[in-house]
């Protein structure tokens, strides 16, 4: 039986986290706004209006370039892509067809098995988003709130060869863009959308098969599922001796299927033309370096930094899912060393559920508090169980770890004299006699019962290791 290989290239639209739109002073945050509430005459395509390029959008593109290991063009330009649709008020989208701002680069996406896949970036260009149409029976309504929102479209080379790699790439792209401050990364609100180009060919074939483009995927899971589905669909066609049609397909998340939207024959002629209203963007190497110097540490930096901590890949993922966690653990590592960092890392990973939507919860993250907490555990002042309780409270508290431990009465008693008194009391208790006898006759497990009694009497504060030691000394 013929074996088939899948080849995937991904175009990812990233909504830039600018204050205003790409070419107008309208508010760029359309969330929770009435339709057409944030529309400037420029976005509306009024006669006589001219685009004014948003400098912040260019700055964010320069930062994105760093995250993509890409070179930034010293000169880039904007072009018009023409088509008629009611969501496009000027009749053209302003994009960068010929001279994009972000040139070739690459992304190393980590895989679950600990390896990684390198996906080369062909280029990324800056462009404006269109508005949104809603259809109601025999009429449609236009909302231009999103019209003119700045995007960068990151175009990958076809370097992806499994649905898992596709997902890993999408996830890594998301992290990179969020960490670099390029986007808010809110997938629910469409801050990142993926167009996935998928083709299959017999393994070892020198030519790629005809590709289908599945448009507008807005979750990592749908990227993975759509790639899986397309692989099966296209293989089935080839097995039957049929041909794959080059076309655009839509994804239905409920049915888990793609369906044909537009074939290549219907492809429009966009009549690209340099935009005469926008002068070329000229960036010096000095300016590019200055902008990129403000890009914070990115996921690959943290992975490298934590590689010797001895924490699981899942813990690394959990930390990286929230940039603030990654930053604080990194600070802890710098201030107090690897073992403390490992302890804190594990607390973060086990305490907080993360998902692909950016969490809106704001945590209080004070590195010194986490260091203090870790040191208290190392000094046997807290048990690992109670330490987690303190940790959870630290995330939303202004108190120090010690203050919390004290206020909750969680500090372990490691004062030998105090514990010895309790030990003596427990050993003298008639209820303990059976356990004492068992231990003496060699059944060591019974010591657990005695320690339990001591913990109970000390209201959990006795250091169990110390208690055990004192019992053994007495028997």
């Amino acid at each position, binding site marked *: 039986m013929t074996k088939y290989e899948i080849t995937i290239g991904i175009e990812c639209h990233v909504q830039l986290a600018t204050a205003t739109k790409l070419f107008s002073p309208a508010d760029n945050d359309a969330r929770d706004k009435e339709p057409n509430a944030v529309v400037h005459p420029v976005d509306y395509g009024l006669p006589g209006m001219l685009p004014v390029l948003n400098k912040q959008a260019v700055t964010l593109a320069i930062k994105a370039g760093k995250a993509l290991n890409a070179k930034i063009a010293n000169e880039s330009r904007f072009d018009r892509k023409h088509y008629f649709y009611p969501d496009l*008020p000027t009749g053209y989208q302003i994009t960068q067809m010929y001279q994009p701002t972000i040139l070739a680069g690459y992304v190393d996406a980590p895989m679950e098995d600990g390896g990684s896949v390198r996906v080369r970036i062909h280029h990324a260009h800056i462009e404006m988003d269109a508005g949104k149409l809603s259809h109601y029976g025999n009429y449609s309504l236009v909302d231009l709130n999103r019209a003119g929102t700045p995007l960068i479209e990151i175009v990958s080379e076809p370097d992806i060869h499994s649905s898992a790699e596709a997902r890993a790439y999408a996830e890594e792209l998301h992290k990179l863009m969020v960490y670099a401050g390029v986007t808010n990364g809110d997938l629910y609100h469409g801050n990142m959308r993926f167009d996935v180009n998928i083709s299959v060919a017999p393994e070892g074939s020198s030519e790629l098969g005809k590709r289908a483009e599945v448009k507008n995927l807005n979750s990592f899971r749908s990227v993975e599922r759509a790639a899986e589905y397309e692989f099966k669909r296209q293989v089935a066609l080839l097995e039957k001796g049929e041909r794959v049609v080059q076309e655009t397909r839509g994804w239905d998340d409920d049915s888990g299927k793609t369906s044909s939207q537009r074939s290549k024959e219907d492809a429009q002629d966009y009549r690209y033309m340099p935009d005469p209203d926008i002068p070329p963007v000229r960036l010096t190497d000095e300016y590019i370096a200055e902008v990129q110097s403000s890009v914070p540490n990115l996921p690959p930096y943290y992975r490298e930094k934590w590689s010797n901590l001895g924490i699981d890949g899942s813990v690394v993922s959990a930390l990286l899912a929230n940039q603030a966690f990654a930053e604080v653990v990194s600070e802890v590592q710098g201030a107090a060393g690897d073992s403390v960092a490992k302890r804190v890392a594990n607390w973060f990973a086990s305490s907080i559920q993360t998902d692909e939507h950016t969490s809106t919860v704001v945590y209080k993250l004070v590195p010194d508090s986490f260091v203090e907490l870790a040191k208290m555990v190392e000094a046997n002042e807290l048990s690992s169980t109670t330490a987690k309780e303190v940790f959870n409270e630290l995330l939303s508290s202004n108190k120090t770890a010690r203050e919390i431990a004290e206020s909750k009465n969680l500090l372990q008693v490691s004062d030998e004299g105090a514990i010895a008194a309790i030990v003596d009391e427990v050993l003298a208790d008639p209820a303990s006699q059976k356990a004492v006898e068992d231990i003496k006759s060699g059944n060591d497990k019974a010591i657990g019962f005695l320690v339990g009694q001591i913990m109970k009497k000390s209201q959990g504060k006795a250091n169990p290791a110390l208690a055990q030691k004192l019992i053994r000394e007495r028997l």
Partner: protein
Amino acid sequence: MAKISEYLGGSAVDNVKKAIVAAKSVSKYNSLLELCEERALDLAAKVDAGEIKGRLAGVPFVAKDNFLTFGSKTTAASHFLENFEAPLQATAIEKLEAEGAICIGKSNLDAFAHGGSTENSAFGPTLNAADETRVAGGSSGGSAVATALGVVPFALGTDTGGSIRQPASFNGVVGVKPTYGMVSRYGVVAMASSTDTIGCFASCAEDAELVMDIIAGHDDLDMTTLPDYFDPTTLDMPKRVGIIKEFMSDDVDEDVRNATRTYATKLEASGFTVSEVSLPMLKYTLAMYYIIVPAEISSNLARYDGVRYGVRAETNDLNELYGKSRDQGFEAENKRRIMIGSYVLSSGFFDAYYLKAQKARTLLINEFNKAFEDYDILMGPVSPTPAFKLGANSSDPMKMYLADIMTVGASLAGLPAISVPAGVSADSLPIGVQLIGQRRSDALLLAVAKSQEGK
């Protein structure tokens, strides 16, 4: 004709009333599409009350109807925008109003400024100020005629390939096309973004200079505007003038050539040296212009789709909405240019037409730059003929395009060029002569024109 100085210091309300009476008395010329009487009188009252002061306090003017203005509709002389009321004003209008000038009406043009005679207006042609059987020229024909008839001392126009210079020449007024980027295009209905310029008509160079001084300058709302540079006060008078050989061939009307030579002789008498200069690339400028400009037009006019404003055809089908709205809203010349533009931009033809034309444009610019090593100013006629008869070229677009041959070069190269009155033909038709300068030499051109007035 009227001078700005005649309006200063008196009652602004009287000035406006006088201009409106004058406008109504010459309505047969169809130079104005709409009067903004109410708003003009309101502003005039404010000027008289001392609430608005400035260098043009109480001076009435008209603006070509492709400038977005309050107090009237902005139609671009098209059916498409027949009922369009602008929610904001063009930068040029705002600057003039800030100096106390008062817009009393909107002037006629070829629809969307596509044309060279004002015959393409959806609301009928404007008649020539000197001869009612002839065209006003265009596309800013209404502004030229209103100025020539003395309705107002100055008028705003736009010049994309000669649309200020040619009607200025046809009606015997001064017409200024500035360096590309000197005046903000914000709030002016776009025709071809890479050659659109905002300029003015006036009865004399001094008035034109004052108006240009006010409307010039960088605008944050137009990325293609240059940093401020227009300064008529500190000038070294240029001395070397080159007559463009290609514009003086036998194909050009003899009266026009004679008028040009006479102007050159006057310059020589004033101490200028005048000699002939050849710019061979000029013979390709019409070909370049009628590729690049329609390309940009097809793009800039894509927004007129019937969805948000303007004409909206009755239909339930989206493609029909586009097709019918645009069919109803555009004139034949608009459609012709949209089709040419769509063709030259289409895949497979883009390189052969648009890119090639842009390369030729670079060669043209280089040739101009080289000529400016030896000459301070280039001169020639504005148009091969004086104003032609109404309807004479209407059925032949190629003939109409050929009339632009002397003006499109400066447009493609972004150079300042002005048209100054230089006598009349045997039929008493006004003839203008064109002065072309290097980029940013706008003030120099006007200074030269001023030096020759009355000589």
